[in-house]
């Protein structure tokens, strides 16, 4: 959100466990409905293969967020 406000296109990524927390913070920071990409939880114990799989699934969503008008 801070990057977007500086004019830098940015895509936030949240795990499914923290979706409600991210929505709350967007609201608190004055950007209710700020879009972000959601990937599967967890991250810390996902392992290399799991992380790669999560990253690949997030690529298209991130690209869409970065180039579409908001």
């Amino acid at each position, binding site marked *: 959100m801070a990057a977007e406000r500086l004019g830098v296109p940015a895509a936030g990524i949240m795990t499914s*466990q*923290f979706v*409600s*927390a991210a929505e*709350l913070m967007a609201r*608190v*920071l004055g950007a209710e409905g700020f879009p972000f990409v959601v990937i599967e939880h967890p991250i810390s114990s996902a392992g290399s293969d799991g992380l790669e799989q999560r990253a690949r699934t997030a690529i298209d969503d991130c690209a869409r967020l970065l180039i579409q008008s908001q």
Partner: protein
Amino acid sequence: MVGDVLAEMAASVDLTIYSQDDITFPEQTSGAQDDASLEQSWRYRIESVPTIIKIVNGREVDRTDGWVRDEWRKLTELNALGEALPPHRPGCGSMSQYPGMPEKLALRYGDIMLAAREIEVTDDQDAIEVSYDRGWSDGLPIVPPTDLRIARMLAATSRKPDEIIGDIPPNLISCSIEKVAINAVMAGCRPEYFPVVLATVEAALKPEFSMHGLLATLWYSGPVVIVNGPITKQIGMNSGGNALGQGNRANATIGRALQLLIRNVGGGIPGEIDRSVLGNPGKYTFCFAEDETDPDWQPLNITRGARPGSSSVTLFHGDGVQAAHTRDSRTPEEVCQSLAASLWSVGNPKVAMQNGAILVLCPDHYEIFKQAGWGRAQIEAQLHQALKRPREDLLAGAGGIAEGIDPNITESMIDKFNPGYLLVVRAGGKGGAMSAIIGGWSAQRRKKEVQIVTQEIIQ
């Protein structure tokens, strides 16, 4: 007798007499003005009666209390005043100074203005139940924050009620001293605890403490408050037997006040922004004092840079309490090795330089160290050595345990804790070699973003 004196004064000066309890006195002047409400006593800041105030052109220029003949004569410029009376007699305490009365009068006559919205509780409602219904409780009953209770809390600080102490996460709600006082009341604090509560809140709001992250984490941790310095004795905190347990009002309510503030001002609700998988009982409250009875022991706050003789709070991101019992260790080296082995289990025994810990050193363990001439510095240094483990024992899969340290770490001996993330604190009662470990938050591995914070208590 003083009635004659007052009559003598009334004959010579423009005299107004107020009485707190008997408007018929003195008969010689046909009585006094009624100040049963104590409004005038409060406005003139009367501390004892009688008090004589000299007003010139609407402004006080002099005052005296009790009966001191020379002072009354000087103030009234009546050189023969009270000739028949003894030279002096002490006054009595003003009713406006009775316990709790200054705050009542300040609320009634405008010295304390509360900004919080008033919630009306009707006669057929229970204030505690209303508080539950409004979501103000951590699950235990709260003390209803009446105006008078809030005013008494605020009287324990010279800070103005509308001063902003910071933004409370997660909702980053601007928080006044008054809001802290309201939550301190609800937590059950006595007013004399309030300076500790204020320092605790200020410590928690430092960005490097990362209160927001601590609240939102899946981990067990909550803020643990360790109090040092003379204030711990002044407010009766427990650093002895059962120091980490129940039964002491200051220990119990100071930690709770911070948690209620996070909940009620910041909006930090379990299951919402608070994502903890299990939490721990310390998330109701977790606060204790360090045992500073041995002058040879350097208190935690001094170790962390506080001024000698000052009082401080130290905030740590802590889990629950884990035993560190030794049954057969007799030498300081044996105790050290045994405690170090217990400390390795923090977080996971195969994980290093991630979670910090508090080692609460009990008196029986400390006595073994002290007899050997070990002070804080040597205990910490020996623990540091005892906490090193061979790299190969900690790699993923070693010992049949999947967890392990980062394989990119190349040192042959591995430290359990990052520097500064093992706090050694003295507390507890005698009778058992039973120290305690309070494990730390896994995010303490981020040494820049997540730091242990010590804050001076300003009284």
